[in-house]
């Protein structure tokens, strides 16, 4: 099994920002992958599998976030999470 590092940049598009419900959805999704997943916003780096960590980012609508995945399923993990952000966590848009 080859190790790979994958990365992408996303923007928080849902009006509510990354709070309880989206954060929880993000954690649930991230936990399906065995890769290490990190979110980095303005130099602050947190574990994508930790709801407390994600909340700490205080990411509001429009925040830019860099994603990093390291592990066997890094690529698919990144594309799944990018998709989640692009769908605005399935929240009703404004």
């Amino acid at each position: 099994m080859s190790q790979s590092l994958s990365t992408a940049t996303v923007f928080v598009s849902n009006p509510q920002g990354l709070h309880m419900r989206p954060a929880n959805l993000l954690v649930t999704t991230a936990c399906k992958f065995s890769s290490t997943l990190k979110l980095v916003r303005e130099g602050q780096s947190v574990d994508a599998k930790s709801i407390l960590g994600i909340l700490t980012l205080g990411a509001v609508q429009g925040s830019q976030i860099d994603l990093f995945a390291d592990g066997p399923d890094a690529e698919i993990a990144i594309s799944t999470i990018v998709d989640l952000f692009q769908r605005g966590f399935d929240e009703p848009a404004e």
Partner: protein
Amino acid sequence: MLELQGIAVSPGVAIGQALVFDREGYQISRSRAATVDANQEWLRLKAAIDGAATKLDASAQQTSEKLGARLGGIFTAQLQMLLDGRLHEELEQLIQKQSYSAEFAVSEVLNGYAAAFRRAGSSFLAERAADIRDIERLLLEGLTGVPTQTLSEISNPAIIASHDLTPGETAVLDPRKILGLCTETGGPGGHTAIVARGLEIPAVVGIGPFLHLLRADDSIIVDGHLGRVLINPDDITLERYLARREHRQSIARELTELRDLPACTSDGVRVELMANIEFLTEGQSCLDRGADGVGLYRTEFLYLGSQADPSEEDHFQAYVQVARDMAGKPVVMRTLDLGADKMGMTPYAHQENNPFLGLRSIRLSLRNPALFRTQIRAMLRAASEGDIRIMFPMITTLDELRTARFLVRSVAEDLREEGHVVRNDIPIGMMVEVPAAVMMLDRFIEEVDFVSIGTNDLTQYVLAVDRGNEAVADLYQACDPAVLRLIQKTWEIATQHNISTSVCGEMSNDPALALLLVGMGIRVLSVAPSAIPVLKKAIRSVTIGQCQAMAWRAMRLDTAKEVDAFLQNQLAGLVPEMVLQA
């Protein structure tokens, strides 16, 4: 005697012993446990985590049943945070690698998160910091085996004095044990205020630092009408409050007998007494008090609890329950009537210099159609369960009314296309609370099925006074002649068009003002459930002629002070046993 002023958020007067609820009271030994087996220590903590999870799960269910899914969701969120795998790793790390005691690790790690949340500066995360404190308390309880002081286990009835209360603490309040609440922080829209009102516990919040002035078992009075807290009241004050309470209780006993009698004047003019409610539990207290229906159902509580926006299903469940509780009696549902800042809905909030003149209420709803449509969908669906009526708050221009009505029509069409049965006879009305609406009422009236005068905001807007601003609060008088004239004009125009006018502001809680309104022609009053028996008593004690004469004379007075003195004097003459209300 020491007198403190805060913000009155839940009416009533409580007299009793103070219980200082100080969360910092549990001092854990902030030491490393070098001698203890680290593995053992970690297992101990894991057991505490499991125990806390079980408790949170139970709280989520109980609170959902008692106060609705929205507030129950607070505990579900806490559970999600407690089960964070990263949190467990950090705790284990400190215990295994740094030889921390379990207690010390919990307090270190959770304090770190609470501080990070507070630093972020958003009101949403500040509330999460309160959640973290709840989690910390639960874990420490599990570890030490000593329950920290909790509000659910108070043995003797007491008045709680605290810096603030976390959502977890307010959710377990027992009105039989908690006589009153007073807190240093908080405001009218906070969870403490809302829960206190729902449970009818007198409360004053936002007092500022005062806990250091209190000693255990100090006697204390919480006056939830005037926002006043009296510490160690002198004998005269205490007697005055005790006499009022005794008087109120004796009236209350007498009043329960009136429950099933209609609110008719002695010569047979029927006045509908409806209730203003906010909480699901209040449906029962409406019926207990013999309300004719719900004249104002405030839907804001659905937006508190501060997670994501409530879903259509959240709204629907709440509306159906109220409709069913009221068993066919009318329920007037007001769409969202808050500013974004009040709801912890940070993403909608804008920095506003003047929030009362800003993006709030119907303006916020129309600016966020997705938010509004969700609420309207639920109301239309629930309307098949009872006599539901929809009311828009803070309507200022005809465009707003037309846009809102258009959205209701389009939502109804969507629902029908999806196969729902939607009634097409649901009455739609507006609040009259902006002076512009009164000036233009002859136009508005063609496009509504009913109007309801919101005297709280009408008073504030026509007198240009912020009732929360102490420096000018004395100008805020609902019996100001300018307010009375607006009410009179509204009633005249609506009546010419055969449209019903109700008054749903706080002014009608006062029996003297309620009789004045009846004398002015108003036949529907919507008031706090607790005020209904008193008003019924007052109305049944007078003739319509007496009310009309009272109104005729009051409308000719010059100032709020004159009107107030005149009305109280009239009430004393007409219903002597009523005096001593305030």
